[in-house]
Every structure is written in C-alpha cells, then in structure tokens.
C-alpha cells in the first residue's frame, strides 16, 4: 500500500511564502538571481532579504500556469530573444516584458516587482546573460555574477576553490557598497551553516532511494526539493529537511514506499519533466517502472562524496560533519560555501564528459538500475543536453538506454509523440532484458 508523506503541506507553504514575500514585502531587500548561487552572503545583509531564483521560479510557474508560460515564452521571442535560448530564461524575461508575475500559490500579480539587486552565477554560456537582459529591461539593476567554472573535480581543485572564494569575498564588499548596509558576519555564518546543512541533508534523503523498494519516486523528489532551491539558508528549512530525513528513514526501516510496486528501477538524466507529462508517467507507472535516481533532483541542491580517487561516489556526506565544520570566520565560511556549491553534481558534468560518465556509471551500479533514461533538454545547453548523446553511445550496449528530446518548460520543443514511443520501447527493452537474464 502506497505511503503518504506527512511533510507535504509545509514544503509547499514554504515555497509559497518565499515567493509571496518577494512579491508583496513592503520593506527589506528584493534579491534576484540564479538559486544556483551561494545564498548565504545575501543573508549577511539582514533578516529582511527576499529572494527570487530564476530556475525554480520559471519551473514552478510553468507547472502552475502552463498557458501563461507559453505566452511568456512567445512574448520573450517577440521581444527579440533567441529562438534557441534557455526557455527558463525566456519565461522569466517574458514576465518582465509583460510586467506581471505568476507564482506557485496560483496568484498572478500585475506589475513586476523590481529587484534591488541581482546576485547570480555564470556557468553555461548564457547563465548570467539572462540577468544582464533582465537588468537592462528594468533600467539597469546592479548585478554581480559569480563565475562557477564547473568541470569535474572542481570542489577539490584549490585553484578553483580560491577563485570562487575570492569572487564571493569581492561580492560581499560589493553588496555592502550597493545596499549601503553593513554586512553581518554573524548572520552570514549562521545562514552559511544552514545552507550547507540543507544540501547535505537532501543528499542523505536521496541516498535512501538505494534501498528496494525506493521510498521516494521522481515526482515526490521534484516536489520536495524546491524549498532547498528557493531559500535553503533558514533555520526552518533545516528543520523541515531533518524531519523529512527521519520520515524517509522510517519508511525504509518499515519497507514502505510512495510507490510500492517497483518492477524496474530507472536512472534518469534530464531536467524534471517525465512526471510533468501524464502520458510518459502513465506508461512507466503501468509497467511498475520508477525513476529511483536522477542527477537533476539529487544534484541540483544536494551534495555527495563526489570523486574519490578518480571514481564518482553517490555516498552522502554525514550531516553531523556540518555541525562540526569550523565556520568561525567570514573567510572560512566563504571557502566552505564555495566548496559545497562547486561540489554539486549537476555542475560536475558541465565541460567534463568524464565526470558525467563516471556519475552515470556510479548511479547505475549504486542504485541497481534496470534502465538508463536520458532526456536532454532542447533549450538547456548545460548538463541537460551536454554529453547526453555521448552517454547514450557508451551505455547503450551495457543497459537498456533510451534518449529522447525534452525541454524544461517550452512544450513546443518537446517531442511528445517520440517520447511516448520511446518510453514504450524503453519498458519493452527492460522486460526483454529481464527475460534474457532469467
């Protein structure tokens, strides 16, 4: 019998509250940017910081308002953005152009709330250009992009760690200048520890899916990670993920799952979409095929061992390690933050095919996968397209592998007919393999 999570509501509310605060706050600072940025530095500016993050906002808006999303994207294209640019970006800019904003609680606010500053990252070729465009359209919002380099072993490469730390340090001085506020190391360090803790906790929660049956499926994982993406720096988020961790551990001990009937275990590479599409979801569900591990839901805001002497490991980090971390000074906190952010799996694959390959291999073995599902996103050139075709070449011979075109939010670019055909085929190949090995 399917297990029902008790933590649901609080997770949904947390996300809604964050967005509502950004929309309606009468005082405080509105900060915009990729939530793939380290967020704690913003919190050093005070307790009245309201964050809106590009990717999660675009994703959740598309989920809540499919028709609006379609309109946002075509508005952005009418406004001159590239037909092949990131569709998160286009949805986001589309809202700016239409001067309105739609959020997950189902409300649409006319009049786009201008941010006071943009604090973001640069990794793919248009990551920070996204906010350059927003800044330009909103009349020149001050912005600070941090180059995250990416590529394989980044968090263990002192050269890269120093580079990113140095940028964060400079960034903090910039934050003080542009806001005229004094930066509180105390608040910053507290937020930094929370941020790291949440990322580590999420890694642990995901890792529990190595058990059979896997306690969580991709759909739940996608629904449960937004708080960590939207704002992971608060005490509340830490509490929420600790509770969730306990609950999922309990599920494992009692052999329960949100989807008990699991005949096939799937490893998934791609941006969350499979469950956004009932067609594909149904095909997999009917076959008892579940996505039990996904580099996107695991690795976008979760940390793991990463490379241990040249081989990737999805072993989670011990949460208590975070409590013992020495974050006594700003410098120390910055370095630990830089390391944790650089360690995100979703970044390791960028520009380093070997990391992506090693990650896939480790996930397939550690999660005892029956199949590998690759869904490169037509308009995301980072992890979610980069290398997937090569990955298919490499794994096709070893394990049932299919690859179909998808898109994070732009339904026009998805291959629904093809994706359905290929998903049916995928199930067939996994069955055939089981029969052969039997």
């Amino acid at each position, binding site marked *: 019998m399917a297990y029902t999570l008790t933590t649901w509501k609080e997770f949904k509310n947390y996300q809604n509250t964050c967005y509502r605060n950004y929309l309606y706050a009468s005082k405080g600072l509105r900060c915009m940017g990729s939530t793939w940025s380290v967020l704690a530095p913003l919190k050093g500016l005070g307790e009245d910081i309201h964050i809106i993050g590009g990717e999660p906002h675009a994703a959740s808006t598309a989920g809540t308002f499919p028709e609006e999303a*379609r309109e946002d994207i*075509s508005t952005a*294209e*009418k*406004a*001159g953005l590239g*037909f*092949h640019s990131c569709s998160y970006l286009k949805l986001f800019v589309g809202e700016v152009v239409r001067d309105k904003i739609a959020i997950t609680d189902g409300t649409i606010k006319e009049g786009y709330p201008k941010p006071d500053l943009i604090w973001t990252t640069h990794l793919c070729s248009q990551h920070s250009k996204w906010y350059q465009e927003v800044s330009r359209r909103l009349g020149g919002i001050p912005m600070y992009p941090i180059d995250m380099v990416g590529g394989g072993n980044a968090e263990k490469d002192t050269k890269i760690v120093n580079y990113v730390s140095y940028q964060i340090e400079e960034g903090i001085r910039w934050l003080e200048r542009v806001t005229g506020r004094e930066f509180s190391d105390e608040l910053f360090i507290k937020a930094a520890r929370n941020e790291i803790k949440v990322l580590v906790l999420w890694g642990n929660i995901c890792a529990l899916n190595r058990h059979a049956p896997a306690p969580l499926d991709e759909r739940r994982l996608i629904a449960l990670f937004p708080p960590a993406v939207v704002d992971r720096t608060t005490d509340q988020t830490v509490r929420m993920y600790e509770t969730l961790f306990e609950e999922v551990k309990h599920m494992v001990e009692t052999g329960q799952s949100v989807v008990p009937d699991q005949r096939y275990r799937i490893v998934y590479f791609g941006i969350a979409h499979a469950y956004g599409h009932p067609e594909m979801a149904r095909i997999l569900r009917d076959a008892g095929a579940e996505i039990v591990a996904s580099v996107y839901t695991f690795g976008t805001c979760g940390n793991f061992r990463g490379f241990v002497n040249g081989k990737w490991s999805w072993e989670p980090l011990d949460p208590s390690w975070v409590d013992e971390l020495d974050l006594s000074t700003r410098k120390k906190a910055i370095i630990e933050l830089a390391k944790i952010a650089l360690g995100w799996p979703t970044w390791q694959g960028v520009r380093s095919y070997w990391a992506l390959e090693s990650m896939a291999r480790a996930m397939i073995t550690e999660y005892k996968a029956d199949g590998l599902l690759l869904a490169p996103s037509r308009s995301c050139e980072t992890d979610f397209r980069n290398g997937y075709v090569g990955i298919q070449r490499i794994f096709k011979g070893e394990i049932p592998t299919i690859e179909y075109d998808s898109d994070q939010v732009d*339904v*026009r*670019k*998805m*291959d*629904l*007919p*093809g994706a359905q055909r290929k998903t049916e085929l995928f199930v067939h190949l996994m069955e055939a393999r089981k029969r052969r090995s039997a």
Partner: protein
Amino acid sequence: MNEHEYVSMNEWLDWTRAKAIVAGVDVGAVSSKAVILLDRQLYAFSQVKTRMPKESAFKAINAVLAKTHLKLENIHYIVGTGCGSMQVTFASKRVTEIACGAAGAVHIWGPSVHTVLDAGGQSCKVIHCTEKGRATDFLWNDKCAVGIGRSLETFADLVKKEVTEIGRIALQSDSFPKISDFCVVYTQSEALDLIRSKVPLEQVIAAYHYAMAKRISILVGRSGLKKDFAIIGGVAKNPGIIGWLESHLKVNRLPPKPEWDPLFTTALGAALFADAFYRWQ
C-alpha cells in the same frame, strides 16, 4: 490553360499607344508571377506554379506575352525579383523582394501601410515602409520558421484535401488541442499523432493553422507591428492562417482589394521599379 497557370489582362488598354511598357517578374519558391504595366496602369499578369525557377521565369512572362500578343522586345524594361530573381535572365535589373514588396503594397493599399507581411512558400518577411513605399527595415524568418507556406500544401496532401479547402475548414472549430508551433516539422509530426487520440479532422486542421499562424505572429511581433498592416504572398490567400494570425496579433490586416490579388504584390513592385528605371534612363 491548366490549373498551374493563370493569366489575366485588361482588354480596355492598348499597348501600342503606351509610352512605357514595363514588366515585373517575381520568381518565388512555389510559383512565378509576371505583371505588365502600361504607363503605370495594370495591363496583364500571370502566375505559373512550378518549382523550377529557371523555366518558371520564362513560363510566367511567356504566358502574359501570349495573352497580350506582346513580344519580349516590345517591353521597354523588365525587373526581376524573388528568391529566383537570378534566373530572370531576360530582366535588365534585379530588385529584392523586400523593396518590391513594400513598393507594391503601398501602391495597392495606399500610404497608410507601414508594416507588410510577405508570407510566401519558402520564407516569411516582415517589412516596414514609409508612405512612399520605401522599405526602411525588415525581418527575415529564422531558419526554424522556414517553409510554412509549402508545408500547408504537404499537409493538405496528407489529409487528402485541397490546400484552398483546408484554410476554410481551419476556422470551423474553436476548441482543439494545441500542438507545437516551433517549426513545420514538429507541427506536422504532432498533427499526425493527433490521429492516435482520435481528434476529428477539422480540429487537426484548425490546430495546424493555429500553430503556423502563431509562429508567424511571433515574427511579426518581433519586428514590431506599425499600422496599417498588409499581408502579401501566397499565404495571404489562406483564410485559416489569416484568421488565426489576426486573432494572435489582435490586429486586422487591410482587406485585399478586389482588383488586386495579394499574390502579385511583389511582381507589381518590380514592375513599378521597372517603370521608374525606364523613365530615369
């Protein structure tokens, strides 16, 4: 005269009395058009449907010559235009479809025209122009928006209907599934797949036109729509595309003039250029 060829002339005019006999020949991706003016008055025009630019340029001009008993040497000046203009070997000059489209549209609809959508078989261009018919700016479709006009014919074949027919059918349903409007390949593929979900044919046709119109509307929006708005080229004759395009843009085009088939606008523009060049000589 077969379905692939269409000629018409103004019996009231006599070319032997004309001071300036000029022609414009527009060689497009699916058909070629020729227009003959006598002292800037429309005398004759023809359309020849063929995908072979070389022959079609000749076929188009020969059609009008035959009808009017003119000889090529009687024509004082010929301007070639359209994607196949290089193949109008008998023309004395070439002018682009952009300049000709603008000039022709303003001649037909008057100085209020400021945006001209040229939706042809192969490409879509949005042209901005002055009241004098001078192009000031244009936007050419991106590579992924190519072939919308042609695709309508392929689609008509697939659903076993006439291309003239599906345009009307497209306006008969107002609720239908939305399919990809990114490119003709995606749209066609998703339209075919609607069969699987047993969507009635008229809805599939509506969905297809709705999507193609959406794609064109993005191009128009991208270039900035300044009124008045005129549509020329083959697609201008497809009520399905036009209907949905107007509802996407929330702007109505200037209605076609009874005496002018929008298909000949660019050829007319070329003829107007021919007339001007002849007089400047």
